[in-house]
């Protein structure tokens, strides 16, 4: 059997090339995504070097969120008499100010994936400091800093170079005097560090004299961290005293979680590739088995048992799987690189992670590729084993009329299985506490998964549609091409499975393209529309740099610079921070404490001149918060209610002043506060944009912000465009994956179509023998191709429209609408026709050219 499988493969490999490429691509996507995910994990969690490595005990302000291990708490701690507590060997004050460093080429330095950059004090005490100078010296003056190695390499900085720091309230010119590593790594778990003199950092953090945001404590020899902590608790009350090792463990646990969730997202995308690969291989092997009916029947006639025939097909799939998977692993490195670059553009830079060559990254995708091909060959193998030996003796292999019921039952079973995904949609949609993007994304993912399963169900049903459609196209063909149209009609209706398996691959491609196109155009249109409707400003100053958390923040003094420009009637800064909702608690039915709810809060002095929000929101006074309508319902934040949120400075009680709507989701998606309230929540809140009203000229504004490297002046339409684009940036990876899946399905289609032409070389020869011209044969193939296009496009567009309609209903989002632009339809139909022509007409041209006698001999 092995011999036959090997030889069959050796003989047919050329025809299987496209299938092999398809598998290669899907394994490549899989292994690339896996490598990327592992690398991202390494980048995110691998740098678990902690700046607390030498610290024994940390003293942090009251109200420190024990779950948030990365933000150095911004409350205040007074060292007081801590140094005199027995067992304390050394104490150092700590503070952290969010900062953006401008690199040598004027571009902000992006911190490693999922992390941030902070300005922190240089710790001179060697017993506490984990900072190791690899070049230069420690900062000694207020305008001197040391940077971690990642900042130096990513920003092209070295000891001696001058740079700019963008602080929440100002910009500052500094000189880099040293480069440090922490435990041998170029960055710490929380991201990049800029180390200034303690005095400079103390000032930048806006701390009162004698206070710090945290204290690092070293225990004297012989005193354990636990003992020291217990001694410090009563002395330092009300501050929180924790063992540094606990904080370090929490940090690495958190990082691993983050890495795993990135892996999850990528894994899900990779599963699209696996699905497409499965689909394509199943289709190709189905065609292959049909084509080899006679040979398989002969084997059965001379004593090959069904099991042996099944094994034969599977062995061949194994050879294909092994060869293609091995190639796919190589392709994976390319894919991983592309992904890395795509994500880096979005500020998610994982280049700090090492390229994975561990066995997981190799074995898992390889095994997945082999298993995929085996699964895909399962049904064709069974069908092969069922071929009656008598088939070998028939002079022409008429396609057996497939039984209707098993096909219907199979399709129904697949549609049933799709409820595995559609079912949970209701649960998510009816969960009152999920709002906005947290609700839309899971629903969309579930529906898309379900839709993929439905596509396979439709593929099973496809032969049923071939008869009527083929009749229709055939009739048209008879009108236009006369006799060859009649012949085409006969060939189409005689072997519906051949047409339908080609159409199935096309359907998958069309569905992928059309669904993506529908989503893009709908989201894009609506976002631009809503953005333009909402934005009333004449100019917008925004940042052109990016970090992993979105746009790089603007320095806080941008607004005052702009306000001085003649002709500006109002300049309103939008600041952003995230707070945790402490009270009211979210309602959870089954007794579990719900996930913590975070609110994205926008600080703005007066929205009315620059933004048109819906709803009724009075002018916000300090201590008041305006809440977006969907959240009012989800969390019970009715106007008049007092709520408690936990911000960077601890718990703050606020009163809900009213509700509003931001139809664009661009400016204040969840909550609004006045600048005074923002100062209570997070004094370091970053400025995301300055909205300007008035008759000022853009060039004057540009001149006013000229020395802020990341600031750009946009007109309203331009700002909306970049804001929407940055919102859509996350989708780029999805487009990439869909594009690659499309390529896979095209390969699948190429296999199926060209196999179906080769399958009929003999038939074409016969037609040639009875006087059919080459031109007529081509016309037959063309009409058949037209049927394939019609069927594939109909099913594919129907699937995508259905999917998007389902998305619209389930999410209720105004961003997802079923609106099929005519140009998209034209592109899809044109593309489908071109692809079908390329994959069928070209082989047909060759097949039709085969001399009659040779064709008659072909098996």
């Amino acid at each position, binding site marked *: 059997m092995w011999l*036959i499988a090997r030889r069959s493969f050796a003989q047919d490999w050329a025809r299987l090339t496209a299938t092999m490429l398809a598998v290669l691509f899907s394994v490549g996507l899989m292994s690339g995504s896996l490598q990327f995910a592992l690398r991202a994990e390494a980048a995110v969690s691998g740098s678990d070097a902690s700046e607390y490595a030498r610290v024994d005990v940390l003293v942090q302000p009251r109200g420190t969120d024990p779950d948030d291990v990365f933000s150095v708490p911004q409350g205040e701690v007074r060292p007081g008499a801590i140094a005199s507590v027995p067992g304390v060997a050394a104490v150092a004050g700590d503070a952290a100010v969010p900062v953006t460093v401008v690199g040598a080429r004027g571009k902000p330095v992006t911190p490693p994936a999922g992390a941030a950059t902070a300005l922190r004090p240089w710790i001179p005490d060697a017993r506490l400091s984990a900072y190791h100078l690899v070049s230069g010296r420690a900062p000694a003056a207020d305008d001197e800093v040391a940077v971690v190695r990642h900042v130096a390499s990513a920003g092209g900085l070295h000891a001696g170079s001058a740079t700019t720091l963008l602080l929440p309230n100002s910009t500052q010119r500094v000189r880099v005097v040293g480069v440090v590593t922490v435990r041998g790594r170029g960055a710490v778990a929380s991201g990049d560090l800029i180390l200034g003199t303690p005095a400079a950092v103390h000032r930048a953090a806006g701390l009162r004299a004698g206070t710090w945001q945290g204290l690092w404590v070293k225990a004297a020899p012989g005193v354990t961290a636990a003992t020291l902590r217990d001694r410090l608790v009563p002395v330092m009350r009300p501050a929180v005293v924790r063992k540094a090792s606990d904080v370090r463990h929490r940090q690495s646990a958190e990082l691993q979680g983050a890495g795993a969730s990135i892996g999850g997202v990528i894994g899900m995308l990779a599963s699209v590739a696996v699905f497409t690969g499965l689909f394509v291989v199943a289709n190709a092997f189905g065609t292959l088995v049909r084509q080899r009916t006679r*040979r398989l029947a002969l084997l059965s006639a001379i004593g090959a*048992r069904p099991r042996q025939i099944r094994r034969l097909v599977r062995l061949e799939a194994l050879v294909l799987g092994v060869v293609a998977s091995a190639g796919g692993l190589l392709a994976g490195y390319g894919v991983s690189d592309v992904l890395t670059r795509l994500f880096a553009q979005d500020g998610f830079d994982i280049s700090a992670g090492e390229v994975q060559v561990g066995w997981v990254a190799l074995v898992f995708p390889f095994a997945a590729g082999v298993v995929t091909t085996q699964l895909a060959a399962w049904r064709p193998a069974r069908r092969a084993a069922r071929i009656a030996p008598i088939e070998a*003796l028939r002079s022409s292999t008429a396609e057996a009329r497939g039984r209707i019921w098993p096909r219907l039952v199979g399709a129904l079973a697949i549609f049933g299985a799709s409820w595995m995904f559609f079912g949970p949609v209701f649960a998510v949609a009816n969960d009152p506490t999920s709002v906005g993007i947290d609700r839309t994304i899971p629903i969309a993912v579930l529906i898309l998964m379900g839709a993929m399963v439905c596509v396979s169900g439709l593929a099973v049903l496809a032969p049923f549609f071939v008869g009527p459609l083929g009749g229709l196209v055939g009739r048209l063909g008879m009108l236009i091409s006369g006799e060859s149209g009649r012949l085409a009609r006969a060939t189409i209706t005689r072997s519906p499975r051949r047409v339908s398996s080609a159409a199935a691959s096309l359907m998958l491609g069309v569905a992928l393209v059309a669904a993506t196109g529908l989503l893009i155009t709908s989201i894009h249109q609506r976002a631009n529309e809503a953005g333009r409707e909402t934005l009333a400003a004449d100019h917008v100053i925004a940042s052109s740099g990016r970090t992993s958390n979105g746009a790089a923040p603007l320095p806080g003094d941008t607004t005052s610079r702009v306000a001085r420009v003649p002709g500006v009637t109002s300049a309103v800064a939008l600041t952003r921070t995230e707070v945790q909702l402490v009270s009211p608690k979210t309602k959870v039915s089954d007794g579990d404490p719900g996930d913590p709810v975070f609110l994205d809060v926008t600080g703005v002095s007066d929205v009315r001149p620059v933004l048109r929000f819906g709803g009724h929101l009075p002018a916000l006074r300090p201590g008041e918060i305006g809440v977006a309508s969907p959240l009012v319902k989800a969390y019970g934040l009715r106007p008049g209610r007092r709520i408690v949120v936990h911000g960077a400075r601890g718990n703050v009680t606020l009163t809900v002043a009213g509700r509003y709507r931001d139809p664009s989701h661009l400016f204040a998606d969840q909550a609004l506060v006045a600048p005074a309230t923002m100062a209570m929540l997070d004094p370091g809140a970053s400025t995301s944009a300055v909205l300007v009203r008035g008759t000022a000229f853009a060039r004057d504004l540009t001149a006013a912000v000229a020395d802020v490297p990341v600031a750009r002046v946009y007109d309203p339409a331009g700002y909306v465009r970049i804001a929407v684009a940055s919102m859509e940036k996350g989708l780029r990876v999805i487009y990439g994956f869909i594009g690659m899946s499309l390529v896979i399905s095209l390969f699948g289609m190429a296999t199926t179509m060209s196999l179906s032409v080769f399958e009929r070389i003999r038939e074409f020869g016969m037609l040639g023998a009875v006087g059919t011209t080459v031109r007529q044969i081509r016309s037959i193939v063309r009409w058949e191709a037209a049927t394939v296009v019609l069927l594939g496009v109909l099913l594919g567009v129907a699937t995508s429209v259905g999917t998007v309609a389902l998305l619209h209903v389930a999410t209720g989002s105004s961003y997802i609408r079923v609106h099929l632009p005519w140009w998209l339809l034209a592109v899809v139909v044109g593309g489908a026709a071109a692809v079908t022509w390329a994959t069928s007409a070209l082989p047909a041209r060759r097949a039709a050219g085969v001399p009659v006698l040779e064709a008659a001999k072909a098996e």
Partner: protein
Amino acid sequence: MTQTTALAPVAQADSLVKTYGSGENTVAALRGVSASFARGQFTAIMGPSGSGKSTFLHCLAGLDTVTSGSVVIDGVDITRLSRTRLTRLRGEKLGFVFQAFNLLPMLTAEENIRLTARMAGRRADREWFRALVDALGLRDRLGHRPAELSGGQQQRVAVARALLTRPEVVFADEPTGNLDSSAGAEVLRFLRGAVDTYGQTVVMVTHDPLAASYADRVLFLADGRIVYELAGPTIDGVHDVMRRMEA
């Protein structure tokens, strides 16, 4: 080999009925055919096109299902066997030579010959293999693919494959149909030789009186029934019967 065992039936068909389609469109290919085939006997089956001779052979060899009736091969009623057991029986006890399409194009002549034995998981008798290959004049051709062989050589490879497992019965469906007269004669001479030398049982469907004359007896089918049996056929004798049937 004694006379009694030589004449004991190794294959037997009893009231075989085979119909295609259902309702008004029913077409009967076999309308109750009974025949027995003795060990070591060469039987030819003849009849005009559509007489059911090929269908009869297929049913007899377990390649096709029967509508009613039974086929007993070496004491086993093959119409009651499961697919797997039927296939195993075909591989072990029966050999086949078809008109065409009977070699796997990707295997060499030798691999094709050994294929049946390999699939049954047995090692072929090396002596026997050599004897067959020499008798069929295939020694120099073993490494060639079917496409590199002439029609006669291909058919001889098929005959060698059929005989290598020493089957109880060899079924041949128009084995000379695609061959010129000299290549056909070679194949027939060899089949005849196998019957005479090794006591091989052969059942062959043909429409060629010359081919039928190599057999020990000829069964004539018409309209799905056996209408005549001719023992010790000659070319003229077969022609006579055919003329009478057409009249």
